[in-house]
């Protein structure tokens, strides 16, 4: 048949993407390739986001929170109508698995790019999905739904500890708690219920057997409107924290051709049972060569790029094409695995602090040039990662002939990706990828607890000093350039013996001083030492080749330190209300990123200086304050609960003591670093008393 459009097709011309960030950009990229007009919708906080700017048209949802924007069915449908879209792609998350939305889209005569609302509904309820799978002959884990009035303790015993308390409507790790014994069950159920209610508007929970050391393996499926189905092999997504994937790969190092065939067949069978169309994912737990069905995700997955890399398919294109009514056009035997792909998700979160989300501004973002990689991201330099939405910054995907090469290149690419200005998990990802356990394929869902990859990379003294030196050189260059008087006289010129010039830095837990003096030959003598030790000896020699201003706050500097020539990029982030010499510095070189603060010459007392002060670890809403002034607290005692990023964070007493001040009350919004509670440490002060 000639390559012409059959009359039966319903071509998509105007596609509304009911999502935000990287996935909106990802969908638009394929849509554009297919000649489709793209329409974005956006919350107020996203007004200047790249996905809004890149869309052919963007419609404001006029709201701030998820609930008031991307999750607001009425608003999103109204936007669809106003935009004249003829199709809606829901991305992942938000309304992507919302039957009501899918139904309404179709009812309005638009194409829903995804499975039928009926399939979504059947798979949306996790318990009924499991029942369906059992019918289809797919093995499942023991589970029990917690209906109103149900005794969850009995239910848990029936399922057998350890158990996973899970939101029925859930996803993304929200409303999920592992419970190892009966003692912790009540708390876990209560808080999972709260979180599920807040996130999904449905607080139904169920309890499922928890396999602590299995692998999370999932099968990508694709189906057309004509009953044809294929699977696109597996992805392994075992490396998870907070039940959320951070590193995914395809194929899985643990999946043999036999397992692949069995799992693929199970997935296709399940999909057939559902009459599935479009792209979807069937998730399994794999232990040895035994596997159990977990759930079906009736949408595109975050980690879909690794499947694209090894199969050569563009899954979004497939979705759009199939939604238009095209046939698959290939059969299972046409698909083959080519090489190995690994994806790492960079999140604004703190691996050193239980992976708590750490929203903030991405001051600098630049892709690595150290090897080929695919970046799927929704940010540019200056973008904010808001507490309202998922804190993912980017997905970085590497495709290589072998798993070993893919891991090596991805680690190096991540290391040389410039991402600064906020706390993130990049170094942690690199540590995961370089862990011997990862390289040997020993990846199970308890990988992070078991291997404990470092949260921060080790920065050598050399590298640290080079970064300080670069910053000091740029700073002095700028100060000389902008001096109101005597700007042409040599930097720090003296005609007598005077102390050297100094810059003081806080780096991780250290306070350091860099001292320098310009020599007559134009070089600088420099030295770095601990601040408490005063001036270090100036035994390094620095030749400054060039300082180039790249923007108002960014410079690149080329220098040689004791003969080692290097180029570093330096960005100054001014702190509001800071003193003249107080700043945060972001340095990037071939060795990676370093961030540190410049300590002011002159000190001023700040809120954090108060004794025993507890500050908010992230912006959030105070849910409950459990203590009052005068209370005696034990170390580890719960003081208050902060809700941020739709998750609860418990602020506990770092020490035994007396509460001397409570600065917030329930329902207050706390800013990052805001002083919450002050504790007087009784033990220390007793020691002091006896000493004096």
């Amino acid at each position, binding site marked *: 048949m000639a390559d012409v459009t059959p009359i039966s097709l319903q071509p998509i011309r105007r596609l509304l993407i009911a999502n935000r960030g990287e996935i909106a950009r990802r969908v638009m990229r394929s849509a554009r390739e297919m000649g489709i007009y793209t329409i974005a919708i956006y919350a107020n906080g996203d007004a200047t986001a790249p996905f809004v700017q890149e869309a052919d048209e963007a419609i404001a949802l006029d709201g701030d929170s998820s609930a008031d924007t991307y999750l607001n069915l009425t608003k999103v449908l109204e936007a669809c109508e106003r935009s004249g879209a003829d199709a809606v792609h829901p991305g992942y998350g938000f309304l992507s698995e919302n039957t009501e939305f899918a139904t309404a889209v179709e009812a309005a005569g638009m194409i829903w790019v995804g499975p039928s609302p009926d399939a979504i509904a059947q798979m949306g309820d996790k318990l009924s999905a499991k029942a369906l799978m059992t019918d289809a002959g797919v093995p499942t884990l023991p589970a029990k739904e917690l209906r109103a009035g149900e005794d969850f303790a009995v239910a848990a015993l029936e399922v057998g500890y350890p158990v996973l308390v899970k939101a029925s409507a859930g996803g993304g790790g929200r409303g999920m708690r592992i419970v190892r014994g009966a003692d912790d069950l009540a708390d876990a159920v209560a808080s999972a219920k709260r979180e599920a209610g807040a996130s999904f508007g449905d607080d139904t929970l169920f309890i499922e057997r928890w396999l602590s050391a299995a692998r999370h393996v999932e099968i990508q499926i694709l189906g057309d409107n004509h009953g044809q189905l294929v699977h696109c092999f597996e992805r392994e997504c075992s490396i998870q924290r907070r039940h959320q994937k951070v590193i995914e790969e395809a194929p899985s190092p643990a999946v043999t051709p036999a397992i692949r065939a069995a799992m693929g067949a199970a997935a296709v069978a399940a999909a057939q049972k559902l009459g599935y169309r479009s792209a979807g994912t069937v998730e399994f737990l794999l232990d040895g060569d035994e596997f159990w069905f977990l759930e079906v995700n009736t949408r595109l997955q975050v980690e879909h790029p690794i499947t694209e890399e090894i199969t050569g398919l563009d899954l979004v294109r497939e979705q759009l094409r199939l939604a238009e009514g095209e046939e698959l056009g290939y059969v299972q035997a046409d698909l083959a695995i080519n090489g190995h792909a690994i994806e790492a998700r960079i999140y604004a979160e703190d691996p050193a602090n239980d992976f708590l989300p750490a929203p903030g501004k991405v001051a600098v973002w630049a892709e690595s040039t150290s090897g080929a990689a695919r970046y799927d991201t929704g940010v540019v330099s200056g973008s904010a990662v808001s507490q309202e939405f998922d804190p993912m910054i980017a997905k970085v995907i590497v495709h290589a002939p072998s798993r070993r090469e893919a891991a090596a290149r991805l680690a190096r690419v991540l290391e040389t990706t410039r991402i600064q200005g906020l706390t993130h998990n990049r170094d942690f990802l690199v540590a995961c990828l370089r862990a011997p356990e990862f390289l040997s394929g020993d990846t199970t869902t308890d990988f992070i607890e078991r291997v404990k990859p470092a949260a921060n990379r080790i920065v050598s003294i050399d590298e640290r000093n080079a970064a300080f030196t670069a910053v000091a050189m740029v700073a002095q260059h700028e100060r000389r350039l902008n001096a109101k008087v005597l700007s*042409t006289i040599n930097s720090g010129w003296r*005609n007598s013996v005077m102390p050297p010039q100094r810059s003081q830095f806080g780096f991780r837990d250290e306070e350091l001083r860099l001292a320098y003096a310009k020599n007559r030959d134009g070089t600088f003598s420099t030295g770095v030492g601990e601040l408490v030790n005063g001036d270090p000896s100036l035994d390094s020699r620095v030749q400054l080749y060039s300082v180039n201003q790249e923007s108002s706050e960014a410079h690149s500097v080329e220098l040689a330190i004791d003969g080692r020539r290097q180029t570093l990029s330096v960005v100054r982030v001014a702190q509001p209300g800071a003193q003249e010499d107080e700043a945060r510095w972001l340095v990037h070189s071939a060795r990676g990123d370093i961030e540190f603060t410049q300590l002011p010459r002159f000190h001023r007392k700040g809120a954090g200086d108060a004794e025993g002060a507890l500050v908010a670890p992230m912006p959030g809403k105070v849910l409950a304050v459990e203590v009052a002034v005068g209370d005696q607290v034990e170390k580890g005692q719960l003081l208050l609960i902060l809700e941020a990023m739709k998750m609860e964070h418990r602020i506990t007493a770092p020490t035994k003591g007396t509460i001397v001040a409570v600065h917030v009350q329930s329902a207050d919004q706390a800013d990052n670093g805001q002083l919450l509670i002050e504790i007087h440490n009784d033990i220390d002060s007793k020691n002091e008393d006896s000493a004096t």
Partner: protein
Amino acid sequence: MPTLESTLDIRSDQFADNHAAMGRLLGVMEDLQAEAAEGGGEEATQRLAARGKMPIRERIANALDPDTPFLEISPLAAWRTSYNVGSGFVVGIGVIRGVECVILGHDPSVRAGAFNPFNTKKLMRGLEIARENRLPYVQFVESAGADLRGESGEDPEAAIRREEEHFGETGRLFYEITELSKLRIPTVSLVFGASTAGGAYQPGMSDYNILIKNQSRVFLGGPPLVKMATGEDADPEALGGADMHCTVSGLGDYLAEDEMDGIRLLRDVMSHLNWRKQGPGPSLAPDDPLEDSAALLGLVSEDLRTPFDMREVISRVMDGSRFEEFKPLYGPTLVCGWASVHGFPVGVLGNNGALFSEAAEKAAQFIQLCNQIDVPLVFLHNITGFIVGTDYEQGGITKNGSKMINAVANSTVPHISIIVGASYGAGNYGMSGRSFGTRFTFLWPTAKIAVMGPKQMAGVMSIVGRGAAQRRGLEFDEEADAERAAVAEHWAEERSKGLYATSRVADDGMIDPRDTRDVIGMCLSACHNGPVKGTKEFGTWRM
């Protein structure tokens, strides 16, 4: 503007010898600078540190804007005296919050910051620089007051015979501090410790006073004097503590937590001064000289009879080595012309031999021209004097030299003198020596300043002695005369050395020749804080 081309042979033996000699002189200078920076020594510094006190140079360094230059004045004062090298005070021109100012600091490690004749002279010089150039004046006060201890072990009778100064002449510094204020030149005192008796008037006369908690003490009479005067047992904090002055007496304007906090407050005060320079500032390209300044080290011989071309200095100091020479064919022993340093236009006068009538008249004309166009003057000294001899006297050398001195004395544009080699006799005056209202005077290590060359002086004394003996019909003792002459020459030589001049605060300091350009640049920038205006008014020209 034309560019000077160097003819200096840096491969010659002469250059190598000069370079080696200069290296030795610089070595001596740098050793003395290091000694001066030690202040009262390690032990005294440690003792102060234990009380949270920084050395004076730390205090100053912390007050300065980072990476800005600091020009210290007379860092080697009091060398070869019974006082510490540096005299116990640090005086200099630095930049605080973008404002050039004179900074004076008592060094508490040297005799508790007490006054002595040398540091008093330095302090007065600091005040003079502030007044003449309209620079805000900042003083870091910590002083025991007058040094009452005297010289130990000296015969009191000998001491009293030696003394030239009397208390009745003192106190001018307080006059000058308040005069600065009258002239709308801000004065700021940051009191780091005791400021007793006369010292109390240092903050007393200042526009702004910053006092440090539990550290600054300001009182006319300390507890011992109060006890002597009235019998009162006074508590020092109640008598003159920082808290008291900031809350009760009102002498203190700002109360600092500690030394660094005091320096922070000083920087805040400087930033609100709304300081605007009255001079036009740099107006020309400030590019570096084409010639390498390092060659200046081999240019001048220790033996000042060996001539060199002052244009070699000019080409290594002036922007882009540019120099437009005035009257190059007339009076060639004085090189005159226009150039710029760090963008500031200047007229340059440099000696290339003794001053003859033509050279003196050329100088007088050139100085008038620079006054016409408000251009500051830079004098590069290597002058053994005005030419002497019957022909020259008959040719009017005294009359014509007087014209040059008249022009120099009455010129109102800023003058800066760099004494490269000799600066003898009336040549020193004609080239705007220290006494001629010169804004700044700096020496190269090769500088020699005296009424005449040591050999000439010894010879003149010998001739005069021989003449006197002849007139009285006495036999002239040649041997004794030779011995006398040698001794006279030796001490004249010692006294003519730059180091001696600089130790007596007869100039603003000795510099490394390679720093000449930056020193002149800093001086010119300081001058431009005030108006840069020439005059048409001179004394009567003797025609």
